[in-house]
């Protein structure tokens, strides 16, 4: 029987939650990584290793790794430094593919490791793109200081990678980081922009597993869909309670089904009216349904960050999200109903799921 593992990155370390295929009863391990703030933690299916991007106020940024499903951890930051004087303040986001691990950092850049996270080298700073001079200025970093807030690999094409520069937009390389192309056509921005192709606040991009051309995007001012692998975007916000949110997840078997968690776009950035809900489309964004069975409907001012939701790949897929107030909710029926499986964790930055035989 498979083991189902949730990697929950929090402000006070990593926690691993474990269940079986039934996903009803969960055991909690942690805090791991010595309680360092963990911004994102992932499981690399190919190697069986776990990685956690963490940054200690005292001891700086590093990537922790575990080769025994989270029982023991070591850390390294060897090579995680700019040689041009720029300061690396945070490691924000991880991605593992084709024998490499990528980590996105602030100031914006991507480092790669080919030896399982023991050493790192600079992969790209996306320099030379429109707006890159501005985003390299530390004074221009947006709150959160994520830098590269997401990295996405292609399962088939090793040299193809997408990256989000926080507050700037989505970019794609097809030559392993040598050149990048902005992928923001069709996006909306409610603020002045100096460059036509950049200046979009892209929060989260996910790609359908059954159709590589289908992507969904939650950004600062709307939901969007792409049917050409990010080359262009169509807004699909209509039917949602707000245009703002961070987290998103795809259905593992259906290219048209996609989940988001709309938030109040104001300063609080919590679920509207204190009523918790996940929203699902089954028709690629033409319509949306509110999923709230099992979720609190009174006084629930819950926030969910951009890496805070994930889905597994079982035939009857499960979905999970973690909140900025330390709850983890799980659905084992495709989002129809939800259970609170952790109640009192520290503020949650990320949730990822792994299944292990």
């Amino acid at each position, binding site marked *: 029987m498979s083991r189902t593992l949730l990697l929950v990155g929090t402000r006070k370390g990593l926690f691993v939650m474990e269940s079986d295929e039934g996903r009803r009863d969960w055991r909690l391990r942690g805090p791991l990584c*010595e309680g360092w703030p963990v911004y994102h933690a992932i499981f690399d299916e190919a190697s069986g290793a776990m990685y956690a991007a963490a940054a*200690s*106020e*005292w*001891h*700086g940024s*590093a990537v922790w790794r575990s080769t025994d499903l989270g029982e023991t951890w070591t*850390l*390294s*930051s*060897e090579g*995680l*430094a*700019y*040689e041009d*004087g720029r*300061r*690396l303040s945070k490691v924000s986001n991880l991605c593992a593919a084709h024998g490499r691990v990528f980590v996105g950092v602030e100031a914006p850049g991507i480092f790669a490791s080919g030896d399982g996270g023991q050493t790192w080298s600079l992969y790209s700073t996306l320099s030379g793109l429109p707006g890159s001079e501005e985003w390299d200025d530390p004074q221009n970093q947006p709150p959160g200081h994520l830098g590269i807030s997401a990295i996405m690999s292609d399962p088939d094409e090793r040299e193809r990678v997408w990256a989000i520069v926080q507050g700037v937009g989505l970019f794609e390389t097809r030559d392993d980081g040598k050149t990048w192309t902005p992928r923001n056509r069709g996006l909306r921005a409610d603020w002045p922009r100096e460059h036509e192709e950049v200046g979009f606040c892209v929060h989260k991009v996910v790609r359908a597993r059954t159709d590589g051309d289908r992507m969904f995007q939650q950004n600062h001012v709307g939901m969007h869909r792409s049917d050409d692998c990010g080359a262009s975007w169509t807004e699909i916000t209509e039917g949602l309670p707000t245009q703002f949110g961070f987290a998103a997840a795809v259905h593992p078997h259906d290219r048209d089904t996609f989940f988001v968690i709309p938030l109040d776009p104001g300063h609080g950035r919590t679920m509207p009216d204190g009523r918790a809900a996940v929203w699902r489309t089954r028709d690629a964004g033409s319509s949306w349904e509110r999923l709230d069975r099992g979720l609190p409907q009174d006084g629930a001012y819950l926030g969910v960050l951009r890496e805070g939701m994930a889905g597994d790949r079982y035939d009857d897929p499960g979905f999970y999200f973690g909140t900025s107030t330390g709850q983890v909710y799980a659905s084992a029926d495709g989002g129809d109903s939800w259970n609170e499986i952790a109640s009192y964790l520290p503020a949650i930055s990320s949730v990822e799921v792994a299944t292990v035989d």
Partner: protein
Amino acid sequence: MADVHLPTTLTPLFAGLPRRLDVDAGSVDEMFAQLDSRWPGLRDRLCEPGVADLRRHIHVYVDQRRARLDTPLEQRSRVDVIAAISGG
């Protein structure tokens, strides 16, 4: 030999690293280099990467005086490496 005292947040990160140890070094920087050779990566946890400076929230005191990386050590110096006590 300088009498070196390390913060409790540091020792769990490196197998076998004690809270207190003796180091024969001429400066704080040399002391960190020696510790880094025995526990690779230790210097990165205390110094900013890419620049010759202590991390913002790491303070070093030599014989109870605030020190920098180039502060010299005497044979019987006491060195306290402190992680700032703020935080929540």
